[in-house]
Each structure stands twice: as C-alpha cells, then as structure tokens.
C-alpha cells in the first residue's frame, strides 16, 4: 500500500524502507517511524477496539500516554500484548496484530456491548455479579474474564534474556527535552557525573515535534547539537529508550532500558531489556507534559487525536493525520497545530476555538466561541458537528480532528512518596507539590514551565541548584533564545451539550456519564471515583483522562479542582514487563545451586539429587536393578546398620568460635552448658529463641581451651550465624569471642555403622580405638598426612564419626573412603536414608523444629539449664508452655503393619467425632522403617508422654488416610543407645 498520508519533512530516514504487517496486511514505513506513525502514513487509523464497549479506536496520542492503540507485537513466544503502537519503534519485519477484537478489527462481535451500553455503566460489575456467591467462581468470573481484558499472552516461555544493573551519578536527569538537555548540559559542563535518560528512541522531546527555533536553529537541530556535546563528555551517560519508572528512597530510581525492543530478535547474548537501579545524589524531573482532550459526544472515533499528537505526526514523522484536519482547542497551543499543518500544506478544515476574542488565525477558518458537539464515522472520523458562537450548528467534514484541552505536567514521579500535586490555575493544571522525593526537583513542562524558554531556563536553574547542593562550582551560561508564548488557556473540560457518551478515559471506556453516576451514587472522593468507574486504571493509568475526570467531579460537587484532589501516583510510570523485573533470576537460574564436595563423585554414581536450601544433596544412589526409590533407600538403611554407610554432611552449618570467653558465650546462646565441656569432646546443643521456642540444634565440639566448632542445621546456618553476631555485638559486647563460618571450608562425611571404626582406622593416622577416641570425642587428626578433623557423633544411632578434610580434598576423600570401605561393602546413603535412620532413633529435625515447639515439647525439657542465663531460658518457663497436657514428641506406628500413615495427619481419639475439637496433635515426619517393616512417624501429641501404648486415629483429609495407630516411644531403634557407644 502507498503511504498516502506521508508528507514532507520529519526525522525519518526515507532512504530506509521497512516492511511490516498489521493484521496480515503488508505496509512500508521508514526508519524513525513508530508503528503508529507508519500506519497513519499508510492511511490506517483503526488500530484497536476499546476495553468494555469494543468501540473502534485509533491512536489518541503520539507517545507513552497512549490509551487506545494497543496491539500484539511479534509472534510466537515473543508475542507481546498491549504494546503501544505510538512508542513501538518500527523495524523491518515487524508483525503486529490487533487485539480485543473477534473475528476482525473491522467486524468485532463484541461490539454488541456498545449497543448495550446502558447496562455497562460504572459499577455494572459490582451491581450485577453480586449473588448468589456460588456463581462467582464457576459462572461470573469466566464470563468476565472472556469478555474483558485487552491483549493475550503467548503462554509460551519468553525466549529472551533480561538483565539488571546498578548505576551511580551525581545528577540524574529524567527526560531529554529542552529542559532535560539544558539541565544535563549545565551539570555536565560543570563536571558533574550525569545520567540523562529518555524513554524515546530519539533525544529532544517536544523539540523533535515542533517547528520553532532554539538558539537560532531548528529546535531539533539544537537538540542534536546538545546531544553531541553531551556524548563528548566522559562523565555523562546518555540512555535512550530508558524510562525512569519509579522513585525510591534516598535518591534511588529504577529504570527500564529497552535494549532490543526495536530489533526483531536481540543480538546474541544481549538482553531484551535491562532493569537499572540508579543511585543519584540529585535528580531533575524533566519529563514534559501530556496533553489532555476535551470530552464531547462520540469523541473517541479513529481520527480524533490530541492536537499536539497531530502536530508531532506532521513535524517529526512527516505524516498527516488525515487529508482534511480540523482542530478543537481551548488554548493557544491548539492554534500552533493549525499553523504547522497549514505550513505543511495540509488542508485545515477549521479551528473550533472555545474561547472568544483574540487574534484570528490568518488563512484558516478560525471559529471562536464554538464547540464540537458530536462526530460521525463508524470506523473512522468523517465529520464533526459544531455549535457555532451564533448558536447555529454546522457539520464540517474532516478525516482527523486535533483536540487540545491543555497540558498536564507529568508530575507522576514526584508523587511516588505520597506528595500531592498542587493546582495552578494560570495553566489549569497540576504541578509538582511540596514533599516529593528528597533531592528531586522538576524543570520544564513537568514543573509547569510550558514554553521552550521556560523549559531551558528552569532546566538550567535546577541544574545550578543541584550543583550548588553538591558543592560544585558552576556559572549560568547564556540561555539559547527560544519562544516564550503563554498557553492562554480558558478551561473547558467537557462539552455540556448532547445526550450521548463523551469519553474521558478511553482505555477503560469511562465517560462523563459514568462520573455523573458515581457522583449520584456518592462515590465523590477521587479514590472512590477511580475504583467505581475504573477511571485511570490499566496500562495508561489515566495519563490523558484523570484530570478531566477530577475536573468534572469538582464541577458536580461544587468543590474546586485542588480541593477535589488527585489519586496517588505509584510506580511504575509506564508498564514494566515481568521479565525485566525477574532479570536473570528465573528457571534454573533463579538462584545459584550449592554443590557438595562429593558432588562429582555422586554424579558419577548416578545419584539422585534433591534441593535442600540451595544445596544439591544426594537423595539416594540407585543401584542396578532397583526400580523404586524405596528399594534404594531401604538398602542404604539396612547396609548402614549392618556394616557401614557414608553420607556427605558438609551442608550442615559450621561456625568457628574462638576467644577467651568462647565457653561463656556458648553458655548464653545454648540452653545447655558448654563452658564445662572438656577439650577434645563434643556435646549436643539446643538453641532457643528468646521466647523459649527451639531455634536450632547441633553438635558443638571443643577443639581447644578457647576454640569451639559449632554445627547448625543446614537450613539455619545463616540465621544462627546472624544470631551469634547479634549476641556478640549487641547483647554482650565485651565478651572476647570471635566467630567465622567454616561451612564450606571443610568437606565433612558421616561414616556410620558397626564397621565405621574399622574403616576409618585404615586411613586415619592416629589411634581411634574406643579408648583413644571415645563416644563424643573430637579432635584434629591426619589422614595420610593431610590435616583433618574427627568427631565421634551419630545421627543414625550407629557407631558413627564425622570426618572432615579441606574441601578441595573432599572428592579424594570420598573415593578414599569408598576404597577403604570396599571390604566392608560400604555404601553411600542419601538424605532419605538419613531421614529414616534419624526417625528410627527419634531425633528431631525440620518437621519438629517448626518454630512453634519448645524443648519440653520435644522431650528435651531437662536440657534447659536454669543455673545460668541463656537466650530463651526465662520465657521457656512460662506457664502456658509448661502445661502437663501440652504437646509431647511421640513415636507413631500403624497397628496393622500394612497400614499407611502420612505426615500432617491429626490425632483423634478412636470414637471421637473427626472435628477440630477432637484434634490431639499432628504427625510431623513419617518414613518407612525397613527394620520394623512398617511406616513409622514422629508427632506432637497433647500429653503424649502419658499416652504411650494408646491406640488413636491418624486422620489426614489431604492424603485421604485414616489409620489406627499406636502411640509409642519416639526411640524405635536401639533405645538404650548401645550401638553408638560400641
């Protein structure tokens, strides 16, 4: 198709033609086009259907405020919904489709909603889909979801990468229009470290869309020169296609850089987008202003646009919005559009100016005191009906109408810390109020300085102020000459004439009538107005419509606009893709794995790994012929108890605690006593929180008079270390104690089973006989000359040791252990077998250390020493935590050995109704014990210590199990502990 609406000029590269398709039809555009400008150049005005009524819509704007022209961009996994055609940079091969229309954009079946509009007024959903409640999930919600919404997700995984990063500057300048460029030049020339970010793909802001001069040259040329100068400064960073989306505390801003959105596919290794966290000392908002429409009947037809957008399409992109264009304005800026179009040879049908008096435009039909009262054209504008000053009406044929209701400074970011904007009646707009983000000031149109001179002057002034704050010397250079015309606005928010719908918020299909209805139903506060009518919601957040809605509500309530107020602006300024927020942290790369020292060896054996925290631990190691995990786990348990098994326990937290007060320190952080522990011995320790609940447990060894090694659970390694630092620095700052984590420094293996000693004695250089290295012994050893550590501790209930070597030798160690163990048929066991053996022994772990249980609950109440002060000692004595009928740790097994029980089951007395009131406690952990040949479990049962031998029901609605169980001692296996002392 020919670019029928392409006119002369503009900042496009006509030598580069780009092919693209929209709804299957092929078009040509040029480098520098947006999808919207290219479609308009090709005479395509209809680009979407509205949210609620499925009204035909074209672009309203030429920027990021666009409510209407939302399309699907790209295909397949890269298809992106709700892309604003007005900012989508054209590339060769671009493929766009309309959304929210079926079967086609021109014939949308859901347009029936438009005929039914009297049902779909504000509050329709609230009023209609109220009851019966049971209808919500099955009937109402699916209907609403099908009918509503805009674009569709591809539902495929995003194939692109997203990056993140951190930038630092003295002064962040947000927006590269005349104010931002002047601010950046002033700050850059003074030697400040500057970041200048602009959401557009070309710097210059409105200068690219205007015809007036700056400093004696075309505004766009001045912008190019300014950019060139800034690029020559090494301390200035220019960031194109970068939107500052939020202001956070203490000068931190978030920015989304669309690195590859303008390419069909990102270059190899390059991200699609980058989320930047910018640390600034000062920031200047030079984000410009957004034009607002005037509401009138049927003001939403394709071809009706903001006047400034019509001007931008003509000046920047060389596109006439239509072959015959009318203008409807309440201020002088609208007149500028008419003059620029006239200069470009576009047929200007008329300027309908709601104001009276003043100079008439030369050579243009300028109707003062007139208003547009209606429009016609089903899929695009054909004519407007005008009420003339005389009272007569006239129909003026036109294919485009530019509407200017005045300009709203883009105050959004200044309100991110709850500052409310202030009303300025001379420009009939809100400007940034006091109390905005510390260090942020506004310049240019964002501050209400709407002229070019005003932008340059305030940009320079705010930069000088920021430089002075930072103690940097700077002088005010001469400002380039530029126009300084007032906007001369006479507010007109909506045309009062007409019974039809006049749109305020085109994205959410909110009309003047809806605001009136909200008022009638007493939703007059702006926050209520927003939620009742959906004014200002969705992707554009009401950038063009909000102030209109507020002004109309003000009129209805008889309040002033400032008294009516605004809703709160929150980040993000424009929509941000979830991918950009996730960055690289998704899928496999969500978090880095931690690998154990024996990982390589275990992988060679075909081990099955399980994520424990971030660790990959061996879960079990299947042998040939084993078809279920249970076979492997049962074999590992039986082999360990029969001879010897080896397990990598490096993941347990290890903390080196030294200092002359190390023992005293441990007495304070552990409920039991460690200062009396002999050198060369270790002891099980129980750590409480200050509220008396068990925090963690583990074994701590005394390696020297002033040297202990603490172990923590894998899960709590970090929080225990944090807690120890807290105790050391905050609670007892004069204790001589130093701590450091050694979790990863040592590869540590548990060697358990009747043959554990015989195996280890083959490789340890020292005598480790029972006499030389008794139960709970600990010490430094050597293994073939290599320094190591040995602890005689057991989690499995077997004769067991933990042996450690520096991590780099961990791989050699597991191979050495397996070689030395070959004669004993040594096996490696994983976390599942570990779990079986610890439950057989009644040791508590994650399921029991649940953050709700006391030492008494666990059957460890006697461990809490009252002879010394320790964290949690006092509050563990609270009455409620020491009731005789409180929870106690018990063992559980099914009465019928074939019976199945499940963790999470609740105990009920047999015969009692299965209800909350009968709940006696719950099962915390369950395994199959190959020794007992049945399921066994641990659990917390009220007065459990008094119920040993009793039969109860274990009921679990989730797993649908209901089993008669016997309450037993939690020590299923070798209750006297003879094996581990063997």
């Amino acid at each position: 198709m020919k670019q029928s609406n392409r006119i002369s000029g503009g900042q496009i590269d006509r030598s580069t033609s780009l092919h693209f398709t929209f709804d299957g039809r092929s078009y040509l555009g040029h480098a520098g086009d947006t999808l919207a400008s290219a479609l308009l150049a090709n005479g395509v005005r209809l680009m979407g259907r509205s949210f609620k009524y499925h009204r035909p819509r074209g672009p309203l704007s030429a920027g990021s405020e666009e409510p209407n022209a939302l399309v699907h961009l790209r295909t397949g996994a890269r298809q992106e919904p709700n892309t604003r055609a007005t900012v989508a940079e054209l590339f060769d091969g671009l493929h766009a489709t309309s959304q929210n229309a079926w079967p086609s954009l021109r014939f949308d079946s859901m347009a029936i909603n438009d005929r039914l509009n009297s049902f779909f007024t504000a509050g329709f959903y609230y009023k209609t889909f109220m009851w019966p409640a049971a209808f919500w999930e099955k009937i109402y919600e699916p209907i609403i979801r099908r009918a509503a919404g805009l674009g569709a997700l591809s539902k495929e995984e995003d194939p692109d990468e997203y990056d993140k990063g951190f930038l630092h500057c003295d002064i962040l300048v947000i927006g590269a229009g005349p104010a931002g460029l002047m601010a950046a030049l002033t700050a850059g020339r003074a030697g400040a470290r500057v970041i200048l970010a602009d959401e557009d793909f070309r710097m210059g802001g409105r200068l690219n869309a205007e015809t007036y001069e700056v400093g004696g040259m075309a505004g766009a040329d001045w912008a190019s020169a300014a950019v060139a100068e800034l690029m020559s400064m090494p301390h200035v960073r220019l960031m194109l296609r970068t939107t500052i989306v939020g202001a956070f505390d203490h000068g931190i801003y978030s920015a989304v850089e669309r690195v590859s959105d303008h390419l069909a596919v990102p270059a190899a290794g390059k991200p699609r987008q980058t989320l930047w966290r910018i640390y600034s000392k000062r920031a200047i908002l030079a984000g410009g202003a957004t034009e607002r429409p005037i509401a009138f009947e049927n003001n939403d037809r394709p071809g009706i646009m903001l006047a400034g957008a019509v001007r931008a399409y003509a000046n920047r992109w060389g596109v006439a919005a239509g072959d015959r264009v009318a203008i409807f304005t309440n201020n002088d800026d609208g007149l500028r559009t008419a003059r620029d179009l006239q200069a470009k040879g576009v047929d200007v049908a008329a300027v309908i100016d709601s104001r009276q008096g003043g100079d008439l435009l030369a050579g243009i039909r300028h109707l003062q005191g007139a208003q547009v009262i209606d429009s016609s054209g089903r899929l695009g504008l054909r004519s407007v009906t005008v009420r003339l000053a005389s009272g007569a009406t006239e129909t003026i044929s036109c294919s485009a109408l530019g509407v200017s209701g005045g300009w709203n400074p883009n105050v959004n970011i200044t309100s991110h810390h709850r500052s409310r904007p202030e009303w300025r009646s001379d420009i009939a707009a809100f400007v940034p109020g006091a109390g905005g983000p510390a260090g942020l000031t506004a310049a240019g149109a964002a501050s209400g300085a709407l002229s070019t001179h005003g932008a340059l002057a305030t940009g320079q002034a705010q930069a000088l102020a920021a430089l002075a704050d930072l103690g940097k010397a700077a002088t005010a250079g001469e400002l380039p000459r530029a126009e300084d015309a007032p906007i001369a606005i006479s507010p007109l928010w909506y045309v009062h004439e007409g019974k039809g719908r006049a749109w305020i918020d085109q994205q959410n299909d909110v009309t003047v009538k809806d605001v009136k209805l909200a008022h009638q139903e007493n939703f007059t506060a702006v926050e209520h107005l927003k939620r009742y009518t959906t004014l200002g919601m969705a992707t554009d957040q009401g950038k063009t419509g909000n102030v209109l809605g507020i002004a109309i509500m003000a009129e209805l309530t008889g309040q002033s606009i400032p008294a009516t107020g605004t809703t709160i602006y929150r980040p993000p300024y424009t929509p941000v893709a979830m991918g950009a927020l996730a960055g690289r942290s998704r899928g496999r790369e969500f978090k880095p794995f931690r690998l154990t020292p024996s990982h390589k060896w275990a992988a060679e054996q075909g081990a099955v790994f399980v994520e424990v925290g971030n660790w990959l631990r061996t879960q079990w190691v299947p042998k040939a012929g084993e078809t279920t995990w249970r076979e492997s786990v049962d074999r590992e348990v039986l082999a360990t108890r029969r001879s010897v098994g080896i397990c990598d326990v490096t993941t347990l937290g290890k903390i080196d605690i030294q200092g002359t007060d190390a023992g005293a320190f441990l007495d304070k952080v552990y409920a039991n006593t460690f200062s009396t522990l002999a050198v060369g011995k270790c002891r099980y320790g129980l750590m409480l929180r200050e509220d008396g609940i068990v925090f963690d447990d583990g074994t701590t060894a005394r390696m020297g008079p002033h040297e202990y090694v603490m172990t923590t659970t894998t899960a709590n390694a970090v929080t225990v270390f944090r807690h120890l630092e807290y105790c050391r620095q905050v609670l007892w700052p004069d204790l001589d104690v130093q701590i450091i984590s050694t979790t990863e420094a040592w590869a540590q293996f548990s060697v358990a089973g009747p043959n554990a000693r015989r195996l280890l004695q083959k490789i340890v250089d020292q005598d480790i006989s029972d006499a030389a290295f008794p139960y709970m012994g600990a010490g430094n050893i050597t293994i073939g000359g290599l320094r190591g550590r040995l602890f005689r501790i057991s989690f499995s209930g077997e004769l067991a040791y933990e042996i450690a070597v520096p991590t780099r030798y961990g791989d050699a160690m597991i191979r050495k252990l397996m070689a030395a163990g070959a004669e004993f048929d040594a096996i490696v066991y994983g976390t599942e077998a570990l779990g079986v053996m610890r439950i057989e022994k009644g040791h508590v772990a994650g399921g029991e250390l649940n953050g709700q249980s006391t030492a008494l609950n666990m059957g460890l109440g006697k461990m809490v020493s009252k002879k010394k002060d320790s964290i949690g000692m006092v509050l563990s004595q609270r009455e409620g935590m020491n009731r005789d009928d409180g929870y106690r740790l018990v063992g559980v097994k099914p009465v019928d050995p074939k019976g199945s029980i499940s963790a999470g089951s609740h105990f009920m007395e047999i015969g009692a109704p299965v209800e909350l009131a009968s709940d006696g406690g719950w099962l915390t952990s369950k395994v199959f014990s190959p020794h007992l040949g049945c399921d066994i479990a641990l659990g917390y049962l009220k007065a459990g210590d008094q119920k040993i031998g009793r039969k109860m029901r274990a009921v679990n609605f989730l797993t649908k199990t209901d089993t008669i169980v016997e309450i037993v001692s939690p020590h299923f296996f070798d209750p006297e502990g003879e094996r581990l002392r063997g």
Partner: protein
Amino acid sequence: MANTWKSLTALGHEEAQVVAIGPYQITERCDVVLASLALRRGQDAAFAAAAHKLGLPLPSASTHAAGPVFSAFWATPEMWFVEADFASHEDIVAHLKPAFGEAASITEQTDAWVRFDVTGAPLAALFERLTNLDLSSLPDGFASRTVIEHLGVYLIRRSASAVVLYGPRSSAQGLLHALEVTAKSVI
C-alpha cells in the same frame, strides 16, 4: 607435613580454569591460601607486634594491602582475611598461630572460597551489571563484601581492569556462570 592428596578445584577440575570472553579473562585461582585473623579483646599491642614481625599488613576498612609474604584485606571490625602462597603456606594457621599465640583467633578459610581474577579490559561496564559497588569511582586496593547474583562475594579492585573476587566455594559454578553471561551481554 606435605601430603600427596589429589585436590579438585572449586569448579570441579584438576587444574584451575581460565575463561576468555571478548576482552575479559576470568581465571580461577587455587594457589592462594586464606585465613581469618581476628583480634582478641585487649590484645591490641601483641596483635600489632605479631603482624609487624610477619610483615603482615592490617589495612583499614574497605581496603586490601599487599605484603611480602602475607597480604590482607579488611573483613569486619577487628578481623582481616590474610592471603599467602598455597605452595609454601598451605596450612596457613600453622604459619600464623606461633606468631600471634593467644592474641588472635585464626581460622583456615582457604577452601571456604573460590577465587576468580577478572582481568583484561576496563571492568566498569561488566561490574555495573553485577554489583551495586561503584567500581569506576573506587580506588585501587578497595576491598568490600558485596552481592553478585544472590552470592555474598568479596570484591577487591586491583586496577580499573583487574578485580579479584572471593565467592562461596560451593557456588563456584554459579558465580562463574553469572560472570560469563554478563560478560557476553556487554561485549
């Protein structure tokens, strides 16, 4: 006593790895030992004397300082990490303990960490995507703990084109992966 054990590097190889991406080189280093060295209460004079005798620098906060045998960087108030050559000082605690005696708490840290030296070109563009530290404005010899892709890492700036990282050894592959993909995105 020397041992004959075979070691694996943090990345799981027998030899240290070197990865080149564009102008950047990421070199795994296995030839440096580390120990934490912490001052015990009231032992300031003895501690300083022992350090002086060993030629062991005790740099101030956020700083790394090189010495003839031992180098060191600051970790936390009254605690430093000491570096030395692996071949001659593998059991670094045994080398330090006799000098410091009861004036210091000393803990072997060598294998708690993986060390990567990142070199080859100005690194600001790479590290601005990895850490919130403002690498380009930091002085040479700057040392600090920071976060790189969820991992707590010590970063030492040797020059604008040379950075040393000590990251958690168990996540060596994850840290290298982060460096690699980021390097690929900026070259």
